[in-house]
């Protein structure tokens, strides 16, 4: 580690007092920490007056649009309405977003990536919305519980012979990002970069039934290089504290449990092994969602991504086999009633899925055979059969 430069240290010393005799006032910190909800609401009300004035005055100065009333925005033309209607056409059971295409609206036009992009948004019947940026992509959150979501574009990449898709994605360089945060969970959004830079793009808030703030951000040239790239979009609360992370898929920095409120974790199942207990934990998120992971030997092993509310049971079969303490443990998401192990000798073993999860230790016959999902009537799901040896998680 570089030692402090003594001359610089001396010069810096002269700029700011040492505060060696600073008097602690822990009682004041406690008062601030225990500020009552009523006081906070009162403060919010006091703050609201100038904010209201600002909102009334702002349009005259072009400072912002406040909250856009969704039903006051321009209705989409028929070709766009047809595009949104097609999102439900032919969707598999359980995957239909339920978009109300006839209510598709033009939320605004943003300039990024060297061109103008129109943002079209339509509500869904379950309380969510679908969004689509022209020349930019988009998606649907049927339930209205996804806290933050971003789409983006990558700079053209040189692809090495034999390089796989994941490697190409991880070597990608985002050039712009567009997306939203849900207003019921977050007050702002931050884009995080590999070099530690954090940018807070401006949001355009749209009223219910959309209830989200949209943003688009052109990434500066200096941040379009390995080591400086945008890696995630983070929803933050009014204090700037983390609520949820949407990783862009580039680089190797990911914390699969970033959204978990670990303090409120709950041990779902425990399995004893020769080298200790393997425990399946779940923890809530700050957006009503759930994170699931395995703990063994002090190590946290992600089992599923943190899922927003309403999506826990929509996963088909996202499982992996973990070799822990001399045992093979199958854990993961299960959107069905049960799974069934098909042994090589023709016998079967059924394991129930509980609350969208499956967790069991495997016997040698399970581990050598196949597995499939069963519906509530005990019927196997077509196409769900997988080879168990192929489910081994990389270690």
């Amino acid at each position, binding site marked *: *580690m570089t030692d402090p430069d003594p001359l*610089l*240290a001396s*010069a810096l010393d002269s*700029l700011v007092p040492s505060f060696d005799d600073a008097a*602690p006032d822990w009682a004041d910190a*406690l008062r601030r920490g225990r500020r009552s909800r009523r006081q906070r609401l009162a403060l919010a009300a006091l703050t609201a007056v100038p904010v209201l004035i600002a909102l009334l005055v702002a349009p005259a100065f072009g400072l912002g649009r406040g909250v856009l009333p969704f039903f006051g925005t321009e209705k989409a033309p028929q070709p766009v309405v047809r595009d949104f209607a097609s999102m439900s056409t032919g969707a598999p059971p359980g995957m239909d977003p339920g978009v109300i295409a006839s209510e598709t609206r033009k939320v605004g036009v943003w300039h990024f990536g060297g061109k103008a992009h129109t943002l079209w948004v339509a509500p869904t019947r379950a309380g969510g919305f679908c969004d689509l940026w022209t020349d930019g992509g988009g998606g649907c959150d049927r339930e209205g519980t996804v806290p933050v979501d971003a789409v983006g574009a990558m700079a053209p990449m040189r692809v090495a012979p034999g390089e796989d898709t994941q490697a190409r994605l991880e070597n990608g360089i985002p050039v712009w990002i567009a997306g939203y945060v849900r207003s019921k969970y977050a007050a702002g959004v931050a884009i995080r970069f590999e070099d*530690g830079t954090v940018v807070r793009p401006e949001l355009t808030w749209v009223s219910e039934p959309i209830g989200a703030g949209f943003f688009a951000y052109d990434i500066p040239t200096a941040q379009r290089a390995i080591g400086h790239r945008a890696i995630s979009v983070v929803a933050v609360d009014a204090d700037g*504290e983390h609520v949820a992370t949407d990783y862009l898929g580039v680089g190797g920095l990911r914390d699969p449990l970033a959204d978990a409120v670990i*303090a409120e974790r709950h041990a779902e199942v425990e399995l004893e092994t020769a080298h200790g207990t393997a425990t399946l934990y779940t923890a809530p998120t700050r957006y009503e969602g759930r994170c699931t992971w395995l703990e063994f030997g002090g190590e946290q092993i992600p089992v599923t991504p943190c899922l927003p509310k309403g999506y826990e049971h929509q996963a088909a079969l996202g499982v992996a086999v973990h070799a822990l303490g001399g045992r093979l443990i199958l854990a993961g998401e299960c959107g069905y009633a049960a799974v069934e192990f098909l042994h090589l000798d023709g016998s079967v073993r059924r394991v129930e899925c509980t609350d969208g999860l499956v967790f069991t230790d495997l016997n040698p016959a399970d581990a050598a055979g196949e597995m499939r999902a069963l519906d509530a009537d005990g019927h196997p799901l077509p196409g769900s059969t997988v080879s168990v040896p192929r489910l081994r998680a990389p270690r």
Partner: protein
Amino acid sequence: MGARLDDLEAAYREHLPQFRRVAAAIVGDEERGRDAVQEAFGRAIRRRRTFRGSGPLEAWVWRLVVNAARDQARRPLARSLDELPSEPEAAGNGASPRGDDLRMAIALLPERQRLVLFLRYYADLDYARIAAALEIAPGTVAATLHAAHAALRRTFQEVPR
């Protein structure tokens, strides 16, 4: 998990001078820096149950202090040090940069370089603790501090390394 109130109070009492110093440097004002530290610990108390325990408590607290100071500044950090009361020029052999020039040179640094510089010099944190506080890699801390030193050296050729 979560953070215990006793641990927060201990951290507050033990490191108060460093918290005050870094916050004053970020905010550019002693009193507002003090307010930022108090507010940071208010937030820590309110949010102590959300402390995940995946890193040291000290890093979490430093993050809150830095964020509260940045909130308190409410203006570009590039101007913050300009507003500190001017101190008499450091006595010495003439190799030390003048205070006003140093303020300006620091004010011209990118924000991350300033934060790393403040945490290194005003809080005496090592690279690992700075990295944890700012949620960046230790290697990034080293590179950032090196860049800050280089930038200041360019401004003050008389400051040798």
